């Protein structure tokens, strides 16, 4: 059977096109499913739109601005210079002017101006201030779910306005009045209940890990453990649950296990904290983010581990690197000789530097690889102990296990990296048009490097990026299995057994 034709056109990759022609309202119809009352209530929000929602929304906005000086500055300081207009992948892929970051954020800014600035209160028509109306709420719901909170626009903003914070605030206000997004909020509920985004219960997790042990032994002849809930292990691995379920994610998990095995590290996964992702970030909900993060602390204490290591997940690393200590700290019970937390790339990189791993890069000679910097790793965190480590460490790891590595164009990687198109809580089938179109800039860069260097594989360190690329690559004439986990490359090159 053939899949039905999509009801939209995939953008054509044109290497000469820098900015698309404006297409007003091009994605006006795109909006995610609204969460049902039981989902909303399960994570502490009203089930449906509350009666006096306009008042509640305006009050919430005031509360957020009062609490976060940053947010207030972001709302006050935009001078409409236009530097951000052509930096958003959703604008570049759709031409919809509401996806220019300045225009999208102005959907909220105009309401802020109306209620919280002097000119907006008295001369709203003069300063583009607007009442909080149903029409405004609908526009928020559409366009704040067309921002993946990737913060590429912020890199180019001369005032350093963090537009992701504005999107998060808008989503939090919408949740507070009872209009939440099904995808994110259902998932957060599952983490609270079952410990992970998938809703994977402990027996299923145990069965999956057991199966992986069998597979790896069958393939390599070496017995590599995938330990679950082992008390007294040194390392707690917290990884996205997609690593237990999807492809190519699971090959990355096999890679981590091989690294731990070969380094002789005792490690474990926890069924209580069987998820690195923290969608509380995407909806701007501190309470939910903290509740999700606390599971990791509880698991670390319960299992008595000495270190916490995060697997390949982009926003999880942002939450872990930047917020874990304030959300769930202090972590003074862990071994102070190691960073809290550590990224699996840092662990592998360190072991490689110390010569603790025997690697045969020829194992990956069938591949010519490029690397996709995930937005939350690139622009909201770091790895290693030097500035830019989040860019150099993954590349050094890949180059140690692949003989053919090439970067994509400089203005599409590093801190200028393009979002995969599915980040920030938008990786859902009801937004597939947005995801395909928003992937255009990344696909453009990938296609360029493919033509120039014969690239065969796109390596990633984020579960969302991996799933998103599996989905969108075929729309652009590539194969879904061209995306690989960085630790799959590592695992395939790693020589198991006793060092010679």
């Amino acid at each position, binding site marked *: 059977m053939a899949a039905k034709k999509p009801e939209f056109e995939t953008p054509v990759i044109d290497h000469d096109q820098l900015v698309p022609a404006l297409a007003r309202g091009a994605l006006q119809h795109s909006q995610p499913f609204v969460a049902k009352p039981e989902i909303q209530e399960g994570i502490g929000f009203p089930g449906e739109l509350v009666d006096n929602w306009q008042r509640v929304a305006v009050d919430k906005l005031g509360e957020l601005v009062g609490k976060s000086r940053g947010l207030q500055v972001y709302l006050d300081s935009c001078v409409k210079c236009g530097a951000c207009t052509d930096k958003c992948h959703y604008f570049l892929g759709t031409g919809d002017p509401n996806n220019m970051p300045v225009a999208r954020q102005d959907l909220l800014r105009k309401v802020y101006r109306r209620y919280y600035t002097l000119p907006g209160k008295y001369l709203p028509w003069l300063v583009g201030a607007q009442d909080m109306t149903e029409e405004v709420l609908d526009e928020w719901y559409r366009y704040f779910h067309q921002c993946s909170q990737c913060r590429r626009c912020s890199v180019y903003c001369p005032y350093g306005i963090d537009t992701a914070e504005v999107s998060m605030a808008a989503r939090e206000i919408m949740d507070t009045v009872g209009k939440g997004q099904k995808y994110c909020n259902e998932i957060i509920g599952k983490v609270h209940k079952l410990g992970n985004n998938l809703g994977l219960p402990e027996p299923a997790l145990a069965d999956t890990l057991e199966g992986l042990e069998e597979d790896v032994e069958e393939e390599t002849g070496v017995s590599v453990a995938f330990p679950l809930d082992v008390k007294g292990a040194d390392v707690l691995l917290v990884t996205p649950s997609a690593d237990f379920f999807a492809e190519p994610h699971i090959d990355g998990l096999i890679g981590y296990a091989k690294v731990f095995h070969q380094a002789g590290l005792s490690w474990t996964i926890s069924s209580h904290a069987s998820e690195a992702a923290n969608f509380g970030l995407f909806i701007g909900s501190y309470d939910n983010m903290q509740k999700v993060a606390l599971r990791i602390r509880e698991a670390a204490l319960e299992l008595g581990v000495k270190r916490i290591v995060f697997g390949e997940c982009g926003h999880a690393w942002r939450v872990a690197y930047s917020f874990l200590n304030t959300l769930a700290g202090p972590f003074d019970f862990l071994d102070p000789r190691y960073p809290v937390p550590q990224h699996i790339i840092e662990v592998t990189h360190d072991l490689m530097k110390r010569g603790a791993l025997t690697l045969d890069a020829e194992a990956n000679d069938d591949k010519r690889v490029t690397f996709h910097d995930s937005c939350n790793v690139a622009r909201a965190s770091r790895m290693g102990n030097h500035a830019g480590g989040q860019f150099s460490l993954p590349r050094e790891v890949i180059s140690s296990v692949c003989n053919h590595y090439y970067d994509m164009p400089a203005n599409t990687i590093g801190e200028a990296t393009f979002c995969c198109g599915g980040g920030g809580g938008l990786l859902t089938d009801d937004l597939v048009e947005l995801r395909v179109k928003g992937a255009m800039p990344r696909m453009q860069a990938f296609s360029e490097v493919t033509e120039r260097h014969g690239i065969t594989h796109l390596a990633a360190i984020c579960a*969302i990026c991996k799933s998103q690329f599996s989905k969108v690559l075929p729309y652009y004439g590539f194969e879904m299995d061209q995306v690989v986990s960085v630790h799959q490359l590592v695992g395939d090159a790693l020589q198991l057994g006793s060092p010679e």
Partner: protein
Amino acid sequence: MGIEVNGKTLETDEEGYLASLSDWEPAVAGVMAEIDDCELSENHWEVINFLREYYEEYQIAPAVRVLTKAIGKKLGKDKGNSKYLYELYPYGPAKQACKYAGLPKPTGCV
């Protein structure tokens, strides 16, 4: 929303997944497949049956890898890969086959 199966209207969610697991009967898969312009072969049914068995034991759909391994054992090694499963279920074996099997949609970064 709902679908008509053997004269009964069964409730589904926005994406066409059954609202209640207990509503499932084999005819449900056929009706859902028809909506997608798909004709169910015996091999499609191997996948659906395995998903239901696994779900009964673990209350979740199996990992794609677990599914491919099981299908490889049943239908031959050349079919035990995700490429073949995507031929059967182009919307993704996890999602589309789960739907036909009456199971909830896998959520998360998948």
